[in-house]
């Protein structure tokens, strides 16, 4: 039996390096983007049955180490790489990772579908979710009375739901909505986006934050006052233009040595992503497609490298 295993060891070939026509695309990264990457993979497989994507949705923080270690050549991330992460990559390979914007996403603050609340200011969001109130609110908000007329909404405690510490969603919300402050400790930290939606959707006194692509009819996404006092709803248009304050790009980092052609499988994947069809898939996965100018701009790099 051990002999057998050793044989298997000795003849195991890794596909990551040499990928002729087909091959496996290794990707490690964002859990938010799991649905998106897998759908692109499915569409790619329909066109090129010999190509497969192996994706490990471990959280954005895992993409840079995986790219640096070479575990994967593609790193989908729901946030931009930090300068430190980029530097570590450059130190290892001698060139920076290729950064591609592949779709737009947003975080939405959600409440129960029957909750009459419509809009929150960023300060209020901070006052609800944080202990430090870095955005400048004067007092914490823990009860619905502070936001709504109690006759309209007869619930008292705001029960909070969010993501676990390792997720990119958690980090982004901390930076953008809490102005870098500290989260309250009594937030339920769910190991995924859909349990947050489910939890808020089933309990009227709840509030939470979640990726835009996971919104459904169970919950209502709140509009946010921007700096000029306009209420901005998390609509597709507001997210695409970036007017909605909690919106962001989704990135794909590629380990691509400059001047060398991409392996065919990767080239095909990128061609798909920046085609109108690829952006339609992004929409079907619940994200917001890139605006036409950004899409063409991103596609150009990929054309050049062909």
């Amino acid at each position, binding site marked *: 039996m051990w002999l057998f295993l050793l044989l298997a*060891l000795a*003849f195991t070939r*890794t596909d*990551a390096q040499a990928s002729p026509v087909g091959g496996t695309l290794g990707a490690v990264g964002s859990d938010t983007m799991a649905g998106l990457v*897998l759908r692109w993979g499915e569409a790619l497989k329909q066109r090129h049955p010999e190509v497969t994507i192996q994706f490990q949705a471990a959280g954005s923080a895992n993409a840079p180490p995986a790219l640096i270690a070479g575990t994967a050549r593609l790193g989908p991330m729901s946030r931009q790489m930090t300068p430190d992460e980029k530097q570590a990559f450059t130190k290892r390979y001698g060139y920076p990772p290729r950064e591609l914007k592949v779709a737009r996403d947003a975080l939405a603050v959600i409440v129960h579908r029957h909750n009459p609340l419509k809009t929150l200011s960023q300060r209020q969001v901070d006052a609800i979710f944080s202990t430090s109130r870095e955005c400048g609110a004067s007092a914490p908000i823990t009860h619905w009375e502070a936001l709504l007329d109690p006759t309209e909404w007869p619930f008292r405690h705001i029960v909070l739901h969010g993501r676990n510490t390792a997720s990119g969603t958690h980090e982004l919300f901390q930076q953008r909505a809490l102005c870098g402050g500290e989260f309250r400790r009594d937030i339920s930290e769910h190991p995924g986006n859909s349990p947050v939606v489910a939890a808020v959707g089933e309990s009227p006194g709840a509030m939470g934050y979640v990726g835009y692509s996971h919104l459904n009819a169970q919950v209502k996404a709140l509009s946010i006052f921007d700096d000029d006092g306009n209420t901005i709803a998390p609509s597709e248009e507001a997210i695409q233009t970036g007017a909605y304050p909690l919106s962001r790009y989704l990135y794909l980092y590629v380990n691509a040595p400059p001047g060398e052609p991409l392996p065919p499988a990767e080239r095909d994947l990128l061609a798909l992503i920046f085609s109108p069809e690829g952006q339609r898939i992004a929409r079907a996965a619940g994200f917001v497609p890139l605006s036409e100018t950004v899409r063409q701009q991103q596609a150009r790099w990929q054309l050049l490298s062909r």
Partner: protein
Amino acid sequence: MSRLWPWLCAASVALSLLMLAALLTLLLTRGLGHFWPATLESVTLDSGEIIAGEAVRETPLPHRDGEEQLYFTGNRDLDGNRWRWVAIDHIAERGAPRTLVRLERSPWGDFIGYLSAFESASERLEGDAAWHALTAALAHPTRERPSATLVLQSAAGEMLRQPLNEIYRAHRPNAMSWWEKTRYWSQGVWQFLSEGPRAANTGGGVWPAIFGTVLMVMVMSVIVMPFGVLAAIYLNEIAHQGRLTRLVRIGVRNLAGVPSIVYGVFGLGVFVYGIGSSLDAWFFSDSLPSPTFGTGGLLWASLTLALLTLPVVIVATEEGLARIPDAQREGAVALGATRLEMLTRVVLPMAAPAMLTAVILAVARAAGEVAPLMLVGVAKLAPQMPVDDEFPYLHVERKFMHLGYHLFDTAFHGEDMQTAIPLVYATALLLVVIVLVLNLTAIFLRHHLRHQRGQSC
């Protein structure tokens, strides 16, 4: 009062049985019910709006009296939503028109509405003819289908053009007879068991997960059995039965109580980061930095679970060995057999059913474990099976899918929990059935074994 206390004890048994039965019934009805073609309703609201969909559940409204009904309406490409909550008192009229169609398709998920035309290169069919053309086209395997476009109309009247190649199945539940529904249902169950997941694990089947689970427990059994049996033989047949052996035995038994997540931590730290990285450095340095064994995979998961099930195997085997009457051993030795001959000719054959029980119990335990696998190599979606036609056929370094983890993943990492829950039920049912059947076999074997021994001595 003392006459009544025993009643509470009796009720405890009744309650336990009841909870078990309730759990199994829930899984059975929901898990299998998911594939049954549900009636589609066409609902007219007070506002004059018409929606069509499957009624899912009713809950009381939180802020005023009354109930609301959740409908699965599909058509995410039209209004961006799959679900619709409707307050019951806002419903003006409900009906179930026979022509309502439900299409399973990609990438937008189900469509519910009416089929108004079937357009192929040569012709345009409408009404019932369109439906017949659609069912005829779907009867072909995916690659041989003609290219055609469906013209669809939602209940609200919006038109939609849908290419035929994005459609998997279609049915008109309101027009189906019981027999047709049963056939549709069994097709659905079969597809669930035999196909791979699609649309980012929100639909399709669980075949790769079944395969991965089975393969993992097989590799695990191959590893755990020799060691477990050797250890059991040593403890029972060779070791001096002193204080030390007793301590070791207690230690082994207690390992069965160590939380599985601890084994996962050990597997990650020692197998993946320790041994795996070293193996990569020695044998696969040409493919570094991309790790071959330095990341979770089938081999490490199997080894971790082998360690986890080792106590189960040792205890069960030892129990079997202990039941063999000493007279058998003495007889063999008296006839001049060495210890090896005594073991292989007399003891082991007699202990074979016990060893079989051991392996079944180990497999049943391993098939249901999820927590350690999350650390050592299970994948959300592993399109490459660990077994294929490429030498050496079994790729123990690959990641694999596992039913239990698939269940957790579809429920917690999916896009929409409401959509995922029926599939999760079906997966949970499958997992429970597998584990229970294995356990029943073990119980039966053990019972049979005791029975046989009882007669022979």
